[in-house]
């Protein structure tokens, strides 16, 4: 009896994948003039677009610009920004949700903001529209819940493959009626690199099944249902410096044990057959923890 139930469909092996650089810069150093010039230009453009003062505070991989009503994070490690209206974003309010844009209208409003803010969303597609929800319980009364904001969520693709991870998404939020409340733009402008050989999905599944995370599971008491395996790229969090989008297989699975009946998770297996040594020499990733399986 096996611990693993393989996915119902395994995609055909795509023997090569296009590599995409995630930055044109070699470092984020103060003495790296091209980087510093580009960062200054991004800051100039972003603060002007959102009408914020040009003096910001340097806070852990980003500069934060604030005024009385809003704040803007401009990240160093990627081409990302996060603007949020302090009073509207994730605010606790019992306002009537009727004024919020609906699921069809929110993406239309978001598209107008892309144009107004000159955000490059060419590689992004709408992933979902959902609502922030706030609930309140006074004493022992029945709780009341309210929709407080609507999010239009976008994901990115490269060469028609999905980009996974927290560093590749756009979220445009409207609240207080249809007022713009938040723009999250996490992305690294890609540039094409060489083509790289890939491992097969079957090999990726083999690597996955050899993950030490499963070693202590007893076959008689546990099962791991593998739902899907997809080829794509991985983007690190926006404050991280990343040289290449990492080619990965994203494996979605559920582990069931007697004591924890359901654990849904996603594991990424590096899709290119490089040793750690080669990864470092080729400068493929900047973060060694993301070399093999994560």
């Amino acid at each position, binding site marked *: 009896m096996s611990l693993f139930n393989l996915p119902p469909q395994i995609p055909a092996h795509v023997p090569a994948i296009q590599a995409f650089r995630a930055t044109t810069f070699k470092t984020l150093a103060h003495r790296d003039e091209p980087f510093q010039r580009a960062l200054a230009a991004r800051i100039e453009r972003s603060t002007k677009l959102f009408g914020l003062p040009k003096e910001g*505070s340097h806070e852990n991989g980003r500069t934060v610009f604030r005024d009385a009503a809003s704040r803007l994070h401009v990240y160093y490690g990627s081409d990302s920004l996060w603007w949020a209206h302090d009073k509207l974003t994730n605010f606790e309010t019992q306002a009537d949700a009727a004024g919020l844009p609906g699921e069809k209208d929110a993406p239309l409003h978001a598209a107008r903001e892309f144009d107004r803010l000159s955000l490059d969303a060419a590689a992004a597609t709408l992933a979902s529209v959902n609502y922030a929800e706030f609930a*309140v319980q006074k004493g022992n009364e029945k709780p009341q819940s309210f929709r407080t904001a609507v999010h239009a*969520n976008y994901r990115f693709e490269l060469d028609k493959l999905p980009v996974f991870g*927290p560093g590749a998404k756009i979220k445009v939020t409207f609240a207080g009626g249809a007022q713009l409340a938040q723009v999250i733009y996490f992305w690294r402008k890609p540039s094409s690199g060489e083509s790289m050989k890939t491992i097969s999905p079957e090999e990726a599944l083999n690597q996955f099944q050899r993950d030490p*995370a499963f070693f*202590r599971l007893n076959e008689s008491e546990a099962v791991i249902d593998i739902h899907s395996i997809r080829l794509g790229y991985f983007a690190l969090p926006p*404050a991280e410096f990343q040289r290449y989008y990492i080619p990965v297989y994203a494996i979605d699975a559920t582990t069931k044990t007697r004591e924890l*009946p359901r*654990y849904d998770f996603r594991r990424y297996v590096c899709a290119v057959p490089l040793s750690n040594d080669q990864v470092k020499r080729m400068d493929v990733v900047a973060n060694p923890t993301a070399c093999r399986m994560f």
Partner: protein
Amino acid sequence: MGTIGVEWANKFHGRAQDLKNNDDNAQGFANTLQGIKRFDWGDDVAWDQDFEQSGTGSPSSGTDQLWADSVDIAFYSGHGNIDGGFFGIANLDDGIARPSNIRLGDQNCEWVVFDACEVLKDDGNVFGRCRQMFTGLHYVLGFHTTCGDSGDRGRIFAERLNAGDRVRDAWIHACTETEGSDTWLAYMRADAAGTDTFNDHWWGKGFTSTDPSNPTIRFYLKTSC
């Protein structure tokens, strides 16, 4: 200066699959947040009873007065589900820090974080499940859905607290920077007459509310990351 306690589990001895990054996550939080680190218990010495009230539940072996309720902020990183924070061993208590057994704030704790799946899942009874946790506690921070095995979230949360963000904003920020939009974060907070936990900051970084020792109102927020 505020006090900090963290617990984490990567090894689950077959109770669940092992995880990889909870040591980095919890220790990144404790080592980054400006304050006094009081404890850092991992794997087999991280216990659910450290978050539970003495005399509650069955077994009733809670020792929160020594651990989670002895610090200003307590942070658990590991597995979880709607039953609570899920720990690596179950031979001392039942291995789950259950909201029904948790009473925090009657000693010290203002904020507790369960960086784990679904502890704050809105199943229609999230208030019923979690309301008794607040005996002076200001916030429970966690997730409505499953979440990733992040090694960075604790550090980012601490960085934002150090930068002077409100506690709620810092958690929202850390989750949004480490998760895709399929993941939903959540928090619950409590208030009483004269308190204002909405505007809570980490100690020394701005306003911090007095304790809602006898809460009259509770708030819950969930939003996609």
